[in-house]
């Protein structure tokens, strides 16, 4: 008989796995800390086979009050060995990995039918959705569109004292050059990969953050966390929220006084390759993914970590089309802890407009908002999902239907330095340049940042933040709420200014 791991003892912290022994070379090699190797291997398989979930993994929540013995009994339908080595708790959700199951969707369905089970779902890989664009211009039309210059007059501290978590592809928070063992096509070679803190951020107000994605976390030779954005999405989103402002360089951030908490929950190609080359000694170039993917387990863990560690606002610019009850649970938990959440509504309007999760859950929770994207002319961006769950709109850029000027611009990792093997044998994470992205991913951080400004101003209840943002939105489309724009376009100045008696 197996035993479920104790709820408190397991959590997110796992034992340190040292990197394979290598000949001593300069620079010193980095290490991974606490990586679940089976999870990483399964995720790699998902990438190779284009699976929408991590094979062999499930997330399950038992009904409240279910005795452990009955919970264990319910899991027998999986016909898999379950032990603390392949089971860990994410709050009330049990993350099972390395299961002997062929089809996680069918296994989750079978498990869901057990009387002790509240829900079970695959560990989905949801995607960050943005459309990169050439970066020759720096034009932040988005700030004027939502009346930020006047809003900054009101909120002079721009959110100082409020911690905002960004659950995304990360933000590079360390300087240094570290040795990674990489595959050159013919042999392994230890290469020096440079890192530099994300440019145009005040790193006195950036927490070290946490790496929850599959192919990490990394440690420097000195044992310090090495968190980096191997894609640019997380840096861009963070920039819209908190890019350093009035510093004669780069771009402005909406809530440029907040403290950022980067939570790396998504991985991209270099995350996979560096791990597989350096840790697993797999001699190959990764060919997938082309974008970034985010396991549900990491997203759920990130939401709970943020809520438990003082974040008052969370940005989630990711999603997919599969239902995510574990994420719904986590969102409810965050709001119960007094944390507001903004979620991108999805970029699939032109390819079926399928309902997007976890954005769909926003309309069920006061204090969580699903955000659609607008172009510079206040039109719904053509890619921006529509539906009953769209609650608010914010600048997201026109994407491929507009010019470079019509995208949302921030500073981000130099994209040429992240070109994938064999174009580059090793990436560099130490140079930053203009980055023009479009997507609901870019819209959500505007709402996140406005929420932080409101929190700083004294509106501290998530449901009240949502109510304020909706109340002062500029109505677009048909009068009143509609499925294209929700309550309309955020108006930062009006929202921060609030009510007098008559006006």
């Amino acid at each position, binding site marked *: 008989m197996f035993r479920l791991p104790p709820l408190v003892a397991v959590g997110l912290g796992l034992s340190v796995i040292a990197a394979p022994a290598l000949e001593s070379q300069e620079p010193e090699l980095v290490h991974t800390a606490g990586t679940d190797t089976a999870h990483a291997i399964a995720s790699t398989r998902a990438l190779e086979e284009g699976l929408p979930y991590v094979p062999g993994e499930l997330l399950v929540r038992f009904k409240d009050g279910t005795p452990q013995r009955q919970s264990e009994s319910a899991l027998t339908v999986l016909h898999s060995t379950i032990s603390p080595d392949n089971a860990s708790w994410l709050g009330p959700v049990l993350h099972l990995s390395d299961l002997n199951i062929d089809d996680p969707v069918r296994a989750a369905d079978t498990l869901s039918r057990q009387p002790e089970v509240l829900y079970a779902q695959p560990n989905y890989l949801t995607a960050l959705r943005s459309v990169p664009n050439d970066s020759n211009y720096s034009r932040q039309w988005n700030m004027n569109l939502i009346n930020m210059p*006047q809003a900054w007059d009101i909120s002079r501290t721009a959110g100082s004292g409020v911690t905002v978590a960004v659950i995304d592809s990360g933000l590079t928070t360390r300087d240094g050059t570290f040795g990674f063992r990489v595959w050159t096509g013919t042999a392994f070679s230890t290469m020096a990969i440079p890192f530099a803190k994300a440019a145009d951020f005040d790193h006195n107000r950036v927490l070290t953050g946490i790496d929850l994605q599959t192919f990490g976390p990394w440690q420097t030779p000195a044992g310090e966390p090495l968190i980096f954005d191997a894609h640019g999405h997380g840096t861009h989103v963070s920039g819209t929220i908190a890019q350093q402002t009035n510093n004669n360089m780069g771009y402005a951030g909406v809530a440029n006084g907040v403290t950022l908490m980067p939570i790396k929950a998504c991985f991209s190609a270099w995350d996979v390759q560096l791990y597989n080359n350096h840790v697993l000694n797999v001699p190959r170039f990764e060919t997938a993914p082309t974008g970034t993917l985010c396991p549900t387990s990491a997203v759920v863990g990130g939401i709970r970590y943020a809520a438990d560690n003082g974040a008052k606002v969370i940005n989630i610019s990711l999603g997919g089309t599969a239902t995510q009850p574990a994420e719904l649970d986590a969102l409810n938990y965050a709001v119960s802890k007094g944390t507001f959440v903004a979620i991108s509504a999805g970029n699939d309007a032109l390819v079926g407009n399928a309902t997007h999760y976890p954005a769909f859950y926003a309309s069920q929770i006061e204090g969580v908002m699903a955000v659609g994207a607008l172009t510079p002319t206040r039109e719904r961006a053509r890619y921006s999902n529509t539906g009953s769950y769209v609650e608010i709109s914010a600048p997201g850029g026109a994407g491929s239907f507009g010019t470079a000027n019509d995208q949302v611009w921030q500073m981000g990792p130099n994209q040429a330095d992240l070109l994938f093997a064999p174009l580059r044998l090793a990436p560099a994470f130490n140079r930053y340049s203009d980055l023009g992205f479009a997507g609901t991913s870019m819209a959500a951080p505007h709402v996140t940042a406005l929420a932080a400004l409101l929190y700083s*101003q004294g509106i501290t209840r998530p*449901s*009240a933040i949502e*109510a304020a943002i909706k109340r002062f939105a500029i109505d677009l489309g048909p009068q009143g709420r509609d499925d294209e724009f929700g309550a309309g376009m955020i108006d930062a*100045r009006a929202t921060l200014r609030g*009510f007098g008696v*008559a*006006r």
Partner: protein
Amino acid sequence: MRFAAALLLLSIGVSASAAPAFAQTTLRPRGYVTYGTTVFSSADSFEAVTGKSSKAGVGGGGALLGIWRGVFFDVGFSQQSLDGERVFVDGGTVYKLGIPVTIKMRPIDLAAGWRFTLTRNLRRVSPYAGAGASFIAYKETSEFGGPGENLDDSKSGGFFLAGVDVAVIRWVHAGAEYRYRSVKGVLGTGGVSDAFNEDQLGGYAFALRISVGR
């Protein structure tokens, strides 16, 4: 205080200058000053923004008695000035936003009414009641407003007053007075008054009144 002093001087001036002219008639002009408290009908709205649902202040005016039997005309002025800060209201919870707001209200009340004559023993006591119109100038200003967001408007509505005077010494009367104003059209279409579904700019006031005149 300057407003109160001006009203006092005005009331004395009205009665002093007018009295000789009307000495040969039955018309009896009076000037008066009041000090009292106005309780706003839109109490929740004012409470949310200014922290007060009522406001003490001075007023003044003039009355013309002896027109025909107990008929009188009355015109009164007052002013309330309130400071507060802009807010957001959600589910009855008020969140202060730290943006100063100043509100000035200047009601002008016009009324016609009747003064009652009591028994011989109470001849020095004079109850009265009247009704008419109230014109309220309302000004609300705060920082960071866009066009049209700082309000300077005036509207009129119904007005009622009732009170009692006692002749203290010759030409000087002291009394207490109740006034009620009902003015719509300024509140209830925006701001916190919209959130609270309050549209009455007026309210009721209790005041002490000193009149000078015959």
